[in-house]
């Protein structure tokens, strides 16, 4: 790449995108296209539709970069939020395609680049945290996030009052946040003796 964009943070790239910098958009795409596509595919279950969701998500990045506030959120969170929203919109429009979202996509064996190793670690981390959530909370989060169900649809589907579903999602996310933070602390402690030995 002609310019040194590879070394800029995601947030600085968004600031450049806000100034209509195409190269910065390309760099963001290169950083996030796989996780964005993987997420969209898990939701819409159709490669062409998943690509549409990613395309629309990045178009939203391009259009609304000027409104992104770096102090408020990480750029990666913001981008994945935009892609998720598009994927959920698409799957709600295409009701017949919506399949059971509970089992995750099959694990693919592939060559292990540094990026892939990192993505696998990231995945293992969130899977581990999800496993430790109470079953009903995990179910509510997974059906909502990967299944694209609204809270009212979830209440119908699970035969529970809407209020129960709301609190379940709230406690589920709060617990997941704590579990992920706990995991980070454990990893830090784990690293400590190794680096000093």
């Amino acid at each position, binding site marked *: 790449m002609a310019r040194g*964009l590879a070394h*800029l943070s995601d*947030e600085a790239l968004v600031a450049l995108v806000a*100034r209509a910098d195409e190269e910065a958009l390309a760099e963001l795409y290169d950083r996030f296209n796989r996780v964005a596509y993987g997420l969209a595919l898990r939701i819409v279950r159709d490669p062409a539709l998943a690509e549409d969701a990613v395309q629309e998500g*990045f178009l939203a990045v*391009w259009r609304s970069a000027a409104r992104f506030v770096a102090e408020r959120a990480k750029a990666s969170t913001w981008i994945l939020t935009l892609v998720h929203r598009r994927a959920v919109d698409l799957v709600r429009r295409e009701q017949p395609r919506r399949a059971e979202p509970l089992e995750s*996509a099959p694990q693919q064996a592939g060559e292990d680049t540094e990026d892939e190793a990192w993505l696998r670690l990231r995945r293992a981390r969130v899977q581990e945290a999800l496993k430790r959530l109470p079953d009903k909370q995990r179910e509510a989060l997974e059906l909502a996030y*990967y299944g694209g169900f609204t809270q009212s649809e979830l209440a119908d589907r699970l035969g529970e009052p809407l209020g129960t579903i709301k609190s379940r999602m709230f406690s589920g996310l709060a617990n997941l*946040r704590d579990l992920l933070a706990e995991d980070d602390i454990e990893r830090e402690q784990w690293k400590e003796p190794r680096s000093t030995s």
Partner: protein
Amino acid sequence: MERTEIHELSAAYALDALGPEELDEFERHLAHCEECREHVAAFQETVAELAYDTDAPAPSPALRNRVLADARREQPKVVAMPARRRWAFPVAAAAAFAAGCVALGLAFWASDLAQQLDDERAALHRADEVVIALSDPTSTRIPLDGADGILVVKPDSSEGWVLVNGLDEAPEGKTYEAWVIEEGEATAAGLFSGGGERTVVPLTEPVPEGAIVAVTVEEAGGVEQSTQDPIFISEQAA
């Protein structure tokens, strides 16, 4: 809707699990509830981790081109200025540049700052911050008197940076020291050594409205109060 109830909706909102009517209602609420905005922001960080539970297969290579083609088509709608003038500053700020101050050099600054600094990680973080500040149209930019450069101040946080072109490295045993001067009182705002084509100095003190920024040469290690004359100074108050 009850207060606790609407609070709980921040989780469903972060998960994109609100129906159209609930979404409208909650977004209206968000517009004036700082507490809920904070909840949502925190939940969104957690929710984004869920996105990584996928084996992240690669999409078709053509998708990259589709994304970039979309952007190119939309270009004129994104910014009011012509696409080529990526780093053009507002007219008023440009007019304020003193004759001889190399405005063009400044215009290039932000876009190749990363390259200039790309082997120093700490410097890169600084580059990030200043790229963000420079690309924020609400930032204040004040030319320097006595050197080729500008003072950039973010209005919300009063964080400031001094950017200088072609500043000689400080002499052996000496350092440059930045000062924020407000109502006649100077506060030390960071040491730096200069040298190289471009120097980026993140100020360690906020630059409040009405303050000016000056730079002196001091003994290595810096001083808490200076008796030196500034070698350069911001042209006007921030």
